[in-house]
């Protein structure tokens, strides 16, 4: 940390006596840690799913640490007060910073995914309720949230790699709620040499893939038998509901004309396709502009933003209900 001593700086923040040079130094140091984490742990996931630069994700992740909350304390001060481990020396302090920034980056990234992917969000929420209700434990390791068995406080062993977790038989992923976790813990203990810990976001993605795979299989099978087009996938049903809303309300009340309604519908088809493949990749303005080339930002915010914002909310709510 150049001429600044990590322990002295953290003490200053703990006592709320930090100077501006100390604050600036900690911001810069936190940014370096954050950027490093983004590049080493989130770079491949970021480029595929989120329209945000590494720099921006790194910055957005640490901003809350330097903002005062309701208690008028800086986020970093609250983090220091909540830290359960020792902060006696520079090693402790550097490790503390690494851990809280790992957590911040993961939380920021997951929040972005949820905003772009309502299916991911729904599954994540359902599993989170299950985890709390059944008292499974959550532990972070290199920023990844792992779910441990009830009663386990720490990760005490080798964790599965991403590739190993993706190789777990699909049959296990079909289980629900508590049984899902119990079967996974059992599989990991019996079939592998690894510590029974389940990576939460990776599990959500596997469940999502399994879900769409089954609908596709079911649809293909029925199409073969009936030789007719059957819409039985939740995104299709949710899209149908949007179409109906456009017809019965927005066109009827002259909020939008038929031509615009068609372009809005095409935008939501694009959104639906992106959600199936990982989540929304653009803003609502960009989606509509792709279908209506002459659209300006001003025109969008004046005439279409509220329509699409509301319809997207409705679309997400529908997906959530159908998945329930």
């Amino acid at each position, binding site marked *: 940390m150049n001429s600044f001593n990590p322990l002295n700086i953290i003490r200053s923040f703990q006592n709320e006596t930090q100077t501006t040079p100390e604050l*600036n130094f900690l*911001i*810069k140091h936190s*940014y*370096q*840690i954050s*950027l*490093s*984490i983004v*590049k*080493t*742990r989130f770079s491949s996931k970021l480029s595929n799913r989120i329209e945000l630069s590494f*720099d921006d994700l790194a*910055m*957005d992740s*640490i*901003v*809350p640490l*330097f*903002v*005062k*909350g*309701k208690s008028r304390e800086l986020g970093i001060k609250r983090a220091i007060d909540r830290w359960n481990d020792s902060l006696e020396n*520079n*090693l402790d302090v*550097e*490790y503390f910073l*690494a851990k809280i920034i790992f957590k911040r980056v993961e939380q920021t990234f997951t929040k972005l995914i949820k*905003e772009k992917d309502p299916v991911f969000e729904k599954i994540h929420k359902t599993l989170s309720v299950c985890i709390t209700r059944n008292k499974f434990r959550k532990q972070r*390791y*290199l920023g990844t949230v792992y779910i441990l068995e009830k009663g386990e406080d*720490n*990760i*005490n*062993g*080798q964790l599965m*790699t991403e590739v190993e977790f993706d190789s777990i038989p699909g049959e296990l992923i079909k289980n629900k709620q508590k049984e899902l976790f119990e079967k996974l813990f059992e599989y990991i203990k019996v079939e592998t040499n690894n510590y029974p810990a389940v990576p939460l976001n990776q599990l959500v993605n596997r469940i999502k893939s399994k879900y769409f795979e089954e609908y596709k299989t079911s649809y293909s099978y029925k199409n073969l038998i009936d030789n007719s087009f059957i819409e039985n996938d939740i995104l299709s049903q949710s899209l149908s509901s949007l179409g109906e*809303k456009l017809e*019965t*309300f*927005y066109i009827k*009340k002259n*909020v939008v004309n038929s031509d615009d309604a068609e372009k809005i519908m095409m935008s939501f088809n694009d959104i639906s396709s992106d959600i199936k493949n990982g989540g929304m990749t653009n803003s609502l303005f960009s989606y509509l502009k792709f279908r209506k080339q002459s659209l300006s930002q001003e025109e969008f*915010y*004046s*005439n*279409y*933003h*509220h*329509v699409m*914002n*509301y319809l*997207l*909310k409705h679309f*997400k*709510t529908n997906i959530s209900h159908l998945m329930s």
Partner: protein
Amino acid sequence: MVVSEKDLFTFVFYSDKLSAELFDYISNNEEKFKEELRVFNAMKNANVADSEMDDILKKINKKIIEYESDKEVILKKVDETNASDVNYFIVDAESDLYGETNQIETFSDDKSKYLAKVLLSSVQTSIQILSKETIELKDIQIIIHPTEEKFDLETSSEPVTLKPARKIESITLCLHK
């Protein structure tokens, strides 16, 4: 031997603080701890150029100010003759569920980043909060004036319904609780 995340961090950053046993074990099993060592070594060697860092610091400070100024926003009544007609459809299309609406009022902040649509009927008042920049707001609090009632909302996607109906003069929107 059980090796914790902190042990691996210590191996990379402060190897002299590690016990000889642990140091030797990790050194002889680097392949096993490949990912952790990769991440921590990258962190140790992270070095953004000073000239670049000054720009970054300015950007972060700007974000901090924006984050803090967004925390409490006052929504004042908008002159309905200027409110866009398009705003009316933000009410759920099945708005007859809210009972017969006698009046719809629009509230907005100075920068027009946030909007509140207030539906007044004889029996209730419904408040819907919208953001121009994000699909929904999470974990917010609204304070209605002059009654000073506070409502904590997990999400802005559901309206706040008040019975009996109340007249609202302004709304304080508290973000980032």
